[in-house]
């Protein structure tokens, strides 16, 4: 299914979604944080979209905002969509979890928390999976500085 039909179907669900077409081969949907869960729910359950395969969940630091990029694919219709969620607040950024919609988000959200500090409310076991528990700071953020370990060249 092409990007335009996808845009119409998803556009009908809520007004404050913004769609971006250029700069990427897939349709990009920017979703406000509070509507994340039910858009994700609709994406999976709706018959025509049927996005049931969470391909990847990436944490990104856009300089001022922190965001999560979901690449979701449909195994029946073989198309993919990119869903983005952003938040301004860098001290306690948090989004709703999607582990009960796609179980593939379980470790991915722990990784986003571990490397970016983004919390997911409702996640059963949110912990640092890669770094030590007493590691200070979130390493993949752009403003992470650690002269203790990191020799930048």
């Amino acid at each position, binding site marked *: 299914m092409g990007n335009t039909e996808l845009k119409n179907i998803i556009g009908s669900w809520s007004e404050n979604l913004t769609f971006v077409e250029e700069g990427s081969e897939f349709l990009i949907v920017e979703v406000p944080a509070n509507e994340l869960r039910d858009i994700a729910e609709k994406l999976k359950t709706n018959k025509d979209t049927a996005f049931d395969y969470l391909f990847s969940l990436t944490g990104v630091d856009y300089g001022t905002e922190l965001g999560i990029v979901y690449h979701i694919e449909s195994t029946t219709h073989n198309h993919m969509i990119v869903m983005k969620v952003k938040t301004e607040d860098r001290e306690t950024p948090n989004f709703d979890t999607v582990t009960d919609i796609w179980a593939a988000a379980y470790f991915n959200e722990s990784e986003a928390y571990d490397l970016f500090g983004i919390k997911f409310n409702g996640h059963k076991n949110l912990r640092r999976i*890669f*770094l*030590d528990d007493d590691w200070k700071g979130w*390493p993949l953020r752009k403003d*992470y500085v*650690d*002269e*203790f*370990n*990191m*020799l*930048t*060249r």
Partner: protein
Amino acid sequence: MEKTRITMGVDVKNMETELGNEFPGNVIPAANGGNIVVTKLDAAINWGRKHSLWSLYFGTSCCAIEMMQTGAPRHDYSRFGFEVARVTPRQADLIIIAGTITVKMAPVLRRLYDQMAEPKYVIAMGACAVSGGPFYFNSYSVVRGADHVIPVDVYVPGCPPRPESLLDAMFELQNKITEESMAHRVNNNPIDGFDEGTTK
């Protein structure tokens, strides 16, 4: 019979002066360095010990594949006495650090080294174990060299080193064992100095 080999080993005594501050963190010099007097009894014991070094099953990343290749039929290190890779440190004499040591893995390596039975030897295999290798710069979680964690006897360059160079490192370790003497045994002071390879 004086051996006329070009030994490329770093002179243990004045290691600090040579390295200067380019190499971050303090390096734990290997304990059982070369000594002078090797009695007949030492020679007999060392001969037996050097031909039956069992390595610990410790492969963290890519070098583990080359270590397995060295154990496999073509390069077969059990021709020289490294018969088998034991799983528990209690039955291993030699730990081949095959791969990167990260900050989270360093206390585990340290604990395994402490739990190994004496006499124990260490081969740091691959650029990551020698000095952090390709992950020296811009990486926040890699210990730059396993000798910040435990004293290393033989270093093997290469990323990953060929099985032949690992075999050569094993011969180098065997030469080092022949020159060991009981008089210079490690008196049981546990080595300290584990600093995650960081610039203090």
